[in-house]
């Protein structure tokens, strides 16, 4: 049996599998993605901003009494 035939059989088998899945409507998928982003917006420091006092990457300035 030629290798081309083996390859072709595998391609068809893969396509059969991929064709069989259930697909959700894009409008529903989009709505859920939006909801996820909005619900998590307050927990996203890159959206809410990071205050200087809690910013781990900003060098901490030390206050001292003179």
């Amino acid at each position: 049996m030629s290798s081309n035939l083996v390859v072709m059989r595998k391609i068809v088998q893969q396509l059969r599998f991929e064709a069989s899945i259930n697909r959700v409507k894009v409008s529903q998928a989009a709505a859920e993605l939006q909801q996820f982003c909005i619900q998590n917006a307050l927990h996203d420091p890159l959206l809410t901003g990071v205050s200087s006092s809690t910013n781990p990457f900003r060098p901490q300035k030390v206050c001292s009494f003179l």
Partner: protein
Amino acid sequence: MAAEKAEMDKLKKECDALRTQIEAARKAVNDGSMSASAGGVAGLGRIQLKLRKNLKGHLAKIYAMHWSADSRQMVSASQDGKLLIWDTFTGNKLVAVPLKSAWVMSVAFAPSGNLVASGGLDNICTVYNIKAASPKTLRELDAHTGYLSCCRFLSDTEILTASGDTTCCLWDLETGKQKTVFTNHIGDCMSLALSPDMNTFISGACDSLAKLWDLREGACKQTFSGHTSDINAIAFFQNGHAIITGSDDCSCKMYDLRSDQEVITYQDPSLNAGVTSVALSNSGRLIFAGYDDFNCHIWDSLKGEKIGVLSGHDNRVSCTGVPNDGMGVCTGSWDSFLKLWN
């Protein structure tokens, strides 16, 4: 011979019919665009992040970086032949791992923080114990017949690799052997990402396709097309239902896994540079995409608009990453520097 030809013709016909069927099924659920339905979502305005740290230490192009799960340590790989492990809070270098082969293309931190892995043109994924007194080679995973483009730990005992030999592979670190080989791409695999639930992973390749794989079954479950050139970068949306890809065709795309199709393209006529890397902010709303134009551009993932830019590198941005706590974004460049922004 005649019987073979007959079967071949039959299979080709079935192949075409199945592709048509898949396209029709995708069209049937395509009842609205992502950006249109995001019309009701408030815009973000311009996102301006500040440069907080410029990490100097590498002596040549940086090809890859990966955050530790602790959101504090980070590992970077450069073709100066070293991996550097950084404390990003202080900017200090904690560990330097000398590489046998300087041609490194990928680096990964294990979730435990005990191990790092790297690989590149040597075709080998080398795993190092960085908790030892000096970094010790734990394993050399040698079975790929092409370069190692990406690696990601599942745990201290399992690692996934993507290779220029067009396969991805799951390895058992206790035995050093391949557990599963994932074959289906017809071009070099360039990037991979693990799903949040660790049951699946996605790969992007030079065949311009992204594929979703079942980790335990070893099978390709879904294939996503649309890009017109190599996919260099890929990431999961935090809820595990969508993926973001970055390509040499100068665009990024979001594919929804459950609708089985592309739902939005992030592209701008003024951007004529390939995308090298992608990372998402913690809510998924911001996409940080590194480009060959020396910048990391920021996209609103829902609206498809470019809303910011991280400028400062003097050469291609080769890697981008957001730590688990989402407190910042790191960019690494061929200019040999890593920058931290928030």
